[in-house]
């Protein structure tokens, strides 16, 4: 059994130590807001926070989580910055299909928690998740709005 702290709750999980955190979240714990897109840390749909750092959970084996606290999209509105990000996403009508947007919101929240007033360069560097609907401009505008 592996102990995890996710969104402030404690869980004990019975899974192989190499199981990616992504599938523990989605299939074992039913936290399906975090998405599977590529499984090789290319797309970022699976982005969660580990101790506040945006992390692609498809590349995080269960055994490596240790004492780090995990935050997922399900708890993002409990965070002040996360709430602002979500409100900016809604105000600017960012999502289209929406499948990548959990990861985008998580990446944006982590960015703004570390860099409350990011430059364009900061946004380009931090917001590397793929969006097949091409909402990149709306995403950048929403990050700027949430930072304002």
């Amino acid at each position, binding site marked *: 059994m592996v102990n995890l702290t996710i969104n402030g709750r404690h869980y004990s999980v019975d*899974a*192989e130590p190499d*199981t*990616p955190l992504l*599938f523990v979240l*989605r*299939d*074992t714990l*039913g936290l*399906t*807001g*975090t*998405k*599977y*897109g*590529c*499984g*090789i840390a*290319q*797309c970022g*749909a699976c982005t969660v926070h580990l101790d506040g750092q945006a992390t692609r959970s498809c590349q995080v084996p269960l055994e490596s989580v240790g004492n780090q606290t995990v935050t*997922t*999209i*399900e708890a*993002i*509105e409990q965070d002040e910055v996360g709430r602002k990000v*979500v409100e900016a*996403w*809604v105000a600017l*009508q*960012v*999502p*289209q*299909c*929406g*499948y*990548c*947007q*959990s990861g985008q*919101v998580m990446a944006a929240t982590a960015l703004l928690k570390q860099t409350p007033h990011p430059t364009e360069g900061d946004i*380009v560097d931090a*917001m*590397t998740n*793929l*969006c*097949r*609907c*091409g*909402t*990149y*401009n*709306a*995403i*950048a505008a929403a990050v700027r709005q949430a930072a304002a």
Partner: protein
Amino acid sequence: MIPLLRPAAPSRRRFLAGAGGALVLSALLPARSARAEAQGPAEGAGALAPKPGTRVAAFLEIHPDGTIRLLSPFVEGGQGIATGMAQIVGEELDVPPSRFVVECAPPGPDYAVVNGIRMTGGSFSTRSSYETMRRLGATARDLMIRAAAAKLKVQDGELTTRDGVVMHADSNRSLSYGDLAADALKLKPNESVPLRDPATFRYIRQPVPRLDVRDKSTGRAVYAIDQKVEGMLYAAVQHAPRLGTEPKGLANEAEVRAMPGVHSVHRLPGAVAVAADSWWRARKAVEALKVEWTAPKASGLDTVAADFSSEIMLAALKASTDPGQVAEEKGDVAAAFAKATKVVEADYEAPYLAHAQLEPPSAIARFDGNGTLDVWLPNQMPEVFQTVSAKVAGLQPAQVRIHSPMLGGFFGRHFFYEASNPFPQAILLAKATGRPVKVLWSREEEFARDAVRPLSFSRFRAALDPAGQPTALEVRTVGEGPIGRYFSMMMQTPVDPSAVEGIVEKPYAVPNRRMTFTKVAHPVNIAFWRSVGHSMNDAFYESFLDEVAQAGGQDPFALRMALLQGNARHRTLLSTVAEMSGGWQRGPYRGEGGMRARGLAMASPFGSETATIAEVSVEGGEARVHNLWIAFDPGSIVNPAIVKAQVESAAALGLSSVLFEQIVYRDGVRQSQNYDTYPVLRREHMPKVHVSIVESGAPMGGVGEPGLPGVPPAVLNAIAALTGQRVRALPVANTKLSSV
């Protein structure tokens, strides 16, 4: 291929543009369904053979709290159709769209509102159903008024409505729709109800916020991949490396069966599968399976042979000598070429493309004790998936319930493409295990089996007169389109419209034209891909038109204007896009960080018109696109914010395809496995996109796809203007661009 549709119209374009609704369904939608008969005459005679889009109870549930559940004929996949439907129905029903909960309806004849069929595709949803859905809302409102009149013992004409409430001003009494719904639905609907005067619209033509945006920003939106049913097994698959080969032997089946959580190991058509208690365990196990596959044919193009490659396919298209069929003809091309001062010739080619939507495909199948089957799956055509599911399961379609959750992107991915859909596997595995089964394809399996935009080839020839004007254009297109593959019964000529759209029916007044189509079938599963034939054909045509301009010593903007003499709609669009970009200037000119140039293109996709200008620079041998200006005329619109978002989204996909994307076959196997080997547009390549909507008042056109086709040629033309290099083989990434 299962026969799906029987046409009585000459072409998809003509038919689906709404010419008479003559398409009838053979296998799918009997005009008089058992279900409709069982429901009886609750709404009068219409219920026996419901005219699609007329039976209020099939579409609307009006709840006591004032919310409305709308069962939509269409599936939401990012295009905003759920919100659009709420606006259209809400406008006439007089209920704010924000009070709607919109879900994709189950299969049924009521929902065949796209000129007699049902699908979410072809950018048809809004334009085909706009009148029908308005009328549905108005009919429902009329029922509310009549139910209220009976209750309040007043005349209909004394009542008004506002925001879901019927009011009697004289007596200061009112009743909410929620209170009236039960009585209202017992009334016989009026055959003809007046529609609202567009001048009084409150929701249509407004940028109404999308209904799903908050859920999609907080992880609460539920896609097929997120669904779970009680007691289900998870299954992962390993496909045959080559389409068409089959599993023979499993060298280590016992070992794999003993892996953690494994329930069972299965052979499927063209694949092997493992069912387990978690998907990760199933995937690890199925990937550990050592499978011996049957041998493919050594060579040939009737199957995916051992030596099949994109290169061999392209060579076959180029080498074909079959003259094919005439797709468009005007004037005397031979005479024009005989008199030509100059002849321009060029070959254009485009690769296979994957959809690469972010949500990997999945499906859940569950057999119930009473011999029925539930299937949850991403799809754009529920009745087709119901029919195929029934066939796979050995049931009747009426015994299959189809659940259509929102799509994590589609772009044409979720039609029925035979071996390219996971749901038949889920059904077979549910049957074999006696348990509900969810099949999820890994990203790698998706890249291996996605149906692809066809690799394409066209040969262009133009005749120029001494003034440099094109007097004749000849285009030979060789290949295959998805309509011919999957909907051939809709075609009454051998010319596949999806293979030649973007080359035929262009607006330019070239006096002599001859376009032909020669069918050469692909051995791979081909697909609809956002804007279909337009996705490459407008790139070819509009690039070649710039080559013609160059050969004739003309400016590309001036040449297009000249060829559009007397054509107000297109000239307006061209002027609009020029103004948006600060006036037409081709360049090269010095911009921020170096030299830049601009390219221009027009396209007429799916009943809409576009004019596009791209601004490009070259850095390190690669094209960088800085700005896209798009003037877009869909005739008239429902939601300007959604229209702009869709045009920008389509532009991004067009840019992604022209710069980066290609599925390459080598030795019968695709060379892309994931996003690292199938690059798509990333943030750093996203240009500014400026969209201007021009409402010409022409019949309503499509919105989801038409923003795409102008972008690739505008970029190619800008690259040519900047570097002098004419890229004729896509994507641009295959060509090293010269520095300027």
